[in-house]
């Protein structure tokens, strides 16, 4: 395969437009899932809640007010083809330049502080984005971009489980995590779950699983079945949309898994709110 050069300006423009898009549009499956739930709901309060969530999705692009005031941390998974060379700035700088410009132009809330512990002064332009880059085969550049809000992220958990733990133990850990989150994480939720790998790979898989389009089912039957089991278990907790009860605590469960050490069974649950803002782009 021949070497392909990609101009940094093209990536900058693409990331800028992607941020603009996700600010006003959730994953396209969210609206239809909420509409379906609304049609099946009999409780007046829960109907009112679901109707408000749907109205917000319709209104946001029309009035150019973000879906949620927390436009979050920008998370980008980069898959760079081994035959690709980016001309100009390195990928992290391009993404951050686009983020800073989009934050100013779109009046996004400044949500990132300089230092986590000693100096929580606001950076005022939302950088740095959190960028994970992987080299893959080919000559394409794939970007998975998400605005990840703080409320749902705060309720995410990882546990280094015992290798002798059962499938039911894993389900119980996820259900416990969702129960602790309650209404704080803005249900109905999307759950990204990492199983296996080591400490950091497990958390990364949970995040990347979230960024799969809703409706993507694990290619392995056992994990697809587990996704289904966890969704049913979580929806039996009675938390419901925005904590108002009912059976719509989560809209989707998406698992990624990887080989792991004989001593380990890491499980990570990355929680996402219903304002699930992400997009995948190939250049």
């Amino acid at each position: 395969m021949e070497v392909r050069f990609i101009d940094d300006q093209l990536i900058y423009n693409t990331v800028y437009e992607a941020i603009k898009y996700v600010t006003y549009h959730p994953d396209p499956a969210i609206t239809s899932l909420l509409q379906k739930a609304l049609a099946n709901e009999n409780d007046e309060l829960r109907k009112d809640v679901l109707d408000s969530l749907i109205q917000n999705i319709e209104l946001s692009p029309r009035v150019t007010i973000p879906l949620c005031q927390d436009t979050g941390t920008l998370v980008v998974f980069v898959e760079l083809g081994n035959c690709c060379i980016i001309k100009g700035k390195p990928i992290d700088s391009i993404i951050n330049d686009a983020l800073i410009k989009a934050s100013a132009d779109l009046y996004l809330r400044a949500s990132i502080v300089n230092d986590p512990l000693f100096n929580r002064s606001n950076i005022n332009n939302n950088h740095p984005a959190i960028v994970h880059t992987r080299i893959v085969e080919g000559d394409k550049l794939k970007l998975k971009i998400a605005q990840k809000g703080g409320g749902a992220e705060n309720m995410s958990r990882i546990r280094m489980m015992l290798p002798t733990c059962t499938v039911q133990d894993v389900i119980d850990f996820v259900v416990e995590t969702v129960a602790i989150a309650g209404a704080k994480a803005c249900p109905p939720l999307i759950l990204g779950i990492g199983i296996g790998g080591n400490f950091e790979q497990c958390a990364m898989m949970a995040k990347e699983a979230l960024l799969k389009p809703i409706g993507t089912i694990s290619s392995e039957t056992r994990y697809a079945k587990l996704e289904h089991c966890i969704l049913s278990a979580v929806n039996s907790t009675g938390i419901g949309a925005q904590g108002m009860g009912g059976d719509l605590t989560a809209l989707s469960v998406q698992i990624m898994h990887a080989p792991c050490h004989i001593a380990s069974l890491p499980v990570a649950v990355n929680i996402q709110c219903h304002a699930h803002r992400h997009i995948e782009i190939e250049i």
Partner: protein
Amino acid sequence: MTTHILSLPICIQDIEKFSIGDKVLLSGTIYTARDAAHKKLVDLVSNGNTLPFNLADTAIFYCGPSPTPPGKVCGAIGPTTSSRMDVYTINMIERGLRLMIGKGERSPEVVETIRAYKAVYLSCLGGISALLSQSIVSCETFLWPELGAEAVFKLVVNNMPAYVSVV
């Protein structure tokens, strides 16, 4: 689901009509405060200063709005997680606060204090900023602009929707 039309200031008769799960359409002047603003508000009163607004007449909205774009009344408005403010809430209720708006559950101690003082905690739906922004009449930075989104904003709201969560 009963819907209440509520104009601030709230009075005991209003609160006595509320049941958990009722909808409230709130109108009046309210103030935002998140973690950093709560810390500063409590520091102010602990040092013997009076607050620049009367807690009993208003509501505290756990919210950090996005900046107001030119030509608009406000940016994106919505609740943040209330439980992070639990450590300050009892102090605020003891000093007169009767109405809080946020999202998610409160600690058992806060729930107990809300009930003991006949206060009320309303839940606003999270992640519906565009919709909530429609009920904002005006939005101005009121205290500590250096805190950015964590500053105290003075909001005038008209029929802002929320739900009774603790009463």
